[in-house]
């Protein structure tokens, strides 16, 4: 029997899910007054598709053997994943106020030992895809039909270890591995395209032997189609979806900022951002 999606039968729309993820992230950002809120707002749509369209899981049993694995290499996106895990019912909403506090289960960088639903310890970039290769091999060995998703960032593509994993996944024909690249063209020192020769991204992955798609990562319909294609593609190849996203998507006055990798937001601006979001609440 096919494993059931944790949200099958839900009538909550994907735009509403993405909206809720953005809202949870803003509420957490307000707790700390700063952080990787730009990434969370940018990745909210691809996370909504992952958790409320594509993935199978059980909210009350985050270690259920049949679940699709979601590996977050980019530990600083923890705020984004917590926001999705809260919306998915894996983390309780009332812990939002503990985000990043001493003894919280939601530290600023994602770590497996702290948080239900956080599969791996990220933060040191260039590890996630390699671990995903091993998990995908293990699932195949167990004849478990689950997928392994790995969310990477464009900056992380600079790490050589990522490309070792890219080649390994092809070698092992890992058709149960779906890499999702959040391409927002922002890393710590500035635009990713100014740091390493990042470009021709889908053709590059395809040349390595991956089934590669590139989409507007803030277009829910396009992302949904890409996830469906990735899951259903017939060839025995690993799959990558390059999602071009906009940092701070959905909050125009934050989108306009030049430096968005790690932002400070004044106390009144959090309220302003939440008010802007609430004005545009989808059905």
């Amino acid at each position, binding site marked *: 029997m096919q494993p059931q999606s944790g949200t099958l039968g839900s009538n909550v729309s994907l735009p509403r899910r993405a909206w809720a993820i953005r809202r949870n992230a803003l509420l957490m950002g307000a707790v700390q007054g700063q952080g990787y809120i730009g990434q969370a707002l940018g990745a909210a749509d691809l996370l909504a598709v992952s958790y409320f369209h594509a993935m199978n899981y059980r909210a009350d049993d985050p270690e259920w053997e049949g679940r699709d694995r979601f590996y977050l290499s980019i530990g600083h996106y923890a705020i984004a994943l917590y926001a999705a895990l809260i919306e998915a019912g894996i983390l309780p909403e009332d812990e939002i106020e503990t985000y990043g506090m*001493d003894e919280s289960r939601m530290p600023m*960088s994602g770590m*497996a030992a702290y948080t239900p639903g956080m599969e791996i*310890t990220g*933060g040191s970039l260039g590890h996630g895809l390699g671990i995903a290769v091993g998990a995908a091999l293990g699932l195949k060995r167990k004849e478990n039909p689950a997928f392994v998703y790995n969310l990477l960032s464009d900056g992380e593509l600079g*790490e050589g270890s990522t490309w070792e994993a890219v080649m390994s996944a092809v070698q092992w024909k890992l058709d149960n591995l779906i890499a999702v690249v959040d391409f927002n063209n922002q890393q710590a020192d500035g635009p990713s395209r100014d740091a390493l020769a990042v470009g021709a991204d889908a053709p590059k992955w395809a040349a390595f032997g991956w089934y590669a798609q590139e989409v507007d990562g803030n277009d829910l319909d396009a992302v949904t189609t890409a996830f469906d294609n990735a899951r259903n593609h017939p060839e025995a190849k690993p799959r990558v979806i390059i999602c071009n996203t906009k940092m701070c998507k959905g909050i125009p006055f934050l989108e306009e900022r030049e430096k968005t990798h790690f932002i400070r937001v004044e106390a009144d601006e959090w309220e302003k951002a939440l008010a802007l979001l609430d004005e545009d609440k989808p059905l």
Partner: protein
Amino acid sequence: MTIPAMSRRQSKYTPRSVPVSETGEKLTTSAMIASLDAEGRDTIAAPFGHALVDLAKTRADIVGLSADLSKYTDLHIFAQAHPDRFYQMGMAEAVLMSAAAGMAREGFTPFATTYAVFAARRAYDFIAMAIAEENLPVKIVCALPGLTTGYGPSHQATEDLAIMRGMPNLTVVDPCDAVEIDQATRAIAATDGPVYMRLLRGQVPNVLGEYGYKFELGKAKVIRDGTDVLFISSGFMTMRCLDAAMVLAKDGVSCAVLHSPTIKPLDAETIIAEAGKGGRLVVTAENHSITGGLGEAVAGALMRSGTFTDFRQIALPDEFLDAGALPTLHDQYGISVGSIIDRVKEWMDGK
């Protein structure tokens, strides 16, 4: 096929007490870019960046390279002053080190910066074979040494000194404050061979100025004398020891502070001479794991020379540390001024 599910570390995974944020007792996580808490002290901005800019005026061979962390290692100051001499290598620490080696081969003196975890853990083989084995003058300068971020083990370089001490040819420096970072930057630029230097960045406390201290590569110096306890310390733990010594003096415990910023080669001569005076409890203090850092280096030097003394170590535990606010973590792991005072009193009482 039945394969048992992975046994996950459960210590933090189980629900924890919900912090009472409204009381203000719980502190927010000190973020990666936060400076070391200066506790109201005078601070100096970006001492490494400014020293390097100054040096570069007369040293055409100096170049700067970073792996997407120039802003977070104060190298952006150099990049702004000398854009043509700054190389953004991207998020790629292996090629950062290999390329620095290549530039050194062509006669340049590269300063390569990243976080201490990424140099020590990820790039170790590249530093060893491309740089140290050839004894090339690459200066590796790394932010977030030891426990200087509340961000968790991915960014806490609690074992970098142990790792780097193991590398032949490499000089290892752990400076205390802004004054020393400025002086040490000039000193490592002037020395031949590869260097690993720990860096405090941003607004860095100015502590040693008032003691008339002058950094010399390979030298440990007595900053404060005392009769009951001899602290041997490096990095910002020297400022913590000086603060603790002032409080302990009021309680009748007289503490000397021997600052040993060069971890390798260790100034064994001075350390043996000071410890060998006898009558003092020797306490090493370091912002590093208890394994393989200053404390064990000092213990080894004393044992090898036949200098036997009461000996204690203040250091981080041999564990992956928690995430949280830095002041909380410094108390929790025993490297705050308060915990130094408590432990010294305990040891003196039990003596």
